[in-house]
């Protein structure tokens, strides 16, 4: 028997755990602002431009983490013994957050590139793979919206996600071979002093907490949407039956 209770107000998506998590990520972001904009020093060559990295590196890490989570959850859905629509919703929620942060990564990265390299974009394998990942997961989200039953959506999108996961190394290596003499794109870790590394670390922690918070809520909203779908069908069936009874 499916749960037919109203899903909008009676069951909000927040729990005590997610509230604590939300506050923790807010505090983390406040820390990041304080350290990133005020306490950490300017870089010797990049000057204040280095501060973009405190957003860029954590969001890139998060975007890749999100796509790994999508891939693993999709595999978990396809694996019979762990098959559950929850995995599908986690995969979808994680991909949405991943696309968002991959957008942030690409924009912040090209701004940083303009400051430190003088160009917005270079056809380096890491950059190109990231751009492909971005487009591929926009396609994945479109596939999720194709309709059908929840199970059809889940199976279809899980397969597309796994194909995308297989595709990433192919794109990476083909671009790498295509442009073997790529620019030095490393952050030049050696040049970052202690406080800079600490700020970067704060950023990664804060963004990871934010990611978990976003995915938790989004996953619950998706569950509610599915429940609403099912409920809508039940309500329509009940109405038709009532009509039949009146005659």
């Amino acid at each position, binding site marked *: 028997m499916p749960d037919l209770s109203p899903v909008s107000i009676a069951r909000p998506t927040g729990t005590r755990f997610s509230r604590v998590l939300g506050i923790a990520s807010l505090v983390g972001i406040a820390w990041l602002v304080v350290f990133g904009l005020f306490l950490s020093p300017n870089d010797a060559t990049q000057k204040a431009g280095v501060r973009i990295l405190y957003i860029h590196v954590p969001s890139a890490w998060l975007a890749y983490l999100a796509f790994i989570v999508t891939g693993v959850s999709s595999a978990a859905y396809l694996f019979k013994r762990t098959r559950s629509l929850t995995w599908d919703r986690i995969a979808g929620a994680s991909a949405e957050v991943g696309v968002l942060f991959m957008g942030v990564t690409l924009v912040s990265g090209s701004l940083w590139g303009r400051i430190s390299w003088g160009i917005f974009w270079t056809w380096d394998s890491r950059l190109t793979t990231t751009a*492909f990942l971005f487009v591929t997961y926009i396609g994945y989200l*479109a*596939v999720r919206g194709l309709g059908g039953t929840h199970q*059809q959506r889940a*199976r279809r999108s899980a397969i597309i996600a796994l194909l995308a996961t297989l595709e990433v190394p192919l794109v990476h290596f*083909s671009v790498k*071979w*295509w442009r073997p003499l790529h620019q030095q794109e490393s952050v030049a870790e050696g040049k970052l002093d202690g406080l800079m590394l600490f700020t970067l670390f704060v950023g990664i922690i804060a963004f990871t907490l934010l990611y978990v918070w976003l995915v938790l809520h989004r996953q619950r909203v998706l569950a509610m949407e599915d429940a609403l779908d099912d409920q809508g069908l039940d309500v329509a069936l009940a109405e038709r039956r009532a009509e039949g009874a009146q005659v």
Partner: protein
Amino acid sequence: MSTWRIARLIAAKDLRIELRSRVVTNQVLPFAALVMVMFAFALDNDNVLTRVAPGLVWLATMFSMLVLVQRSFAVESADGALDALQVAGVRPGGIFLGKSMALAAQLAVLEVVLLLAAIVLYQAEVAWSGAVLLVTTFLAATTGLAFVGTLYGGLAAGAKGRETLLPLLMLPVVAPVLIGATRATEAAFGTNGASSSEGWPWIGLLVLFAALFGTGGTLAFGSLIDE
């Protein structure tokens, strides 16, 4: 019935439909030729055209392939033919392989025409020494493209509004083929002084790509076309 026999029957059916309807010869090939002419308008320089000819051949192949794939599944979804095949218990793996074979045959015709167009319009020169590499490149790339086209075409077939999804899904996936096939074709042509030995590593990539999507497609096609 074995999967292989199903595949051959499906491929023969698709090719017979194409032979009779002549959509490929009357619409897709002229479109591909038009794309090649439009490239010349856009680039407007003979030296540039000769240099980028291999890339343009593959780019035109991929654009035209979008039309071919849509056509390949329009035939199936028009009268619910794909559903009928499934209801009849035809193995989806066989349908996938059959439609891929038919698509590969059509792509091969398309590529030969585009190659000739590049030689005539862009003054691309094919040396005999690169002929083996060229043929291998075309075989490997065509196989991979046909698998990807059938896989994503099957997904995008059916319900309305999905046609616009096909380019978004398919073009990022075939990007490694565009890179690999273009480099290998450049090596075969000797563009920019490339030697044909530089082309063979790319064949490895193309074969890997075809194997990956061939296996994935045969296994997953049933779930993707399930309505």
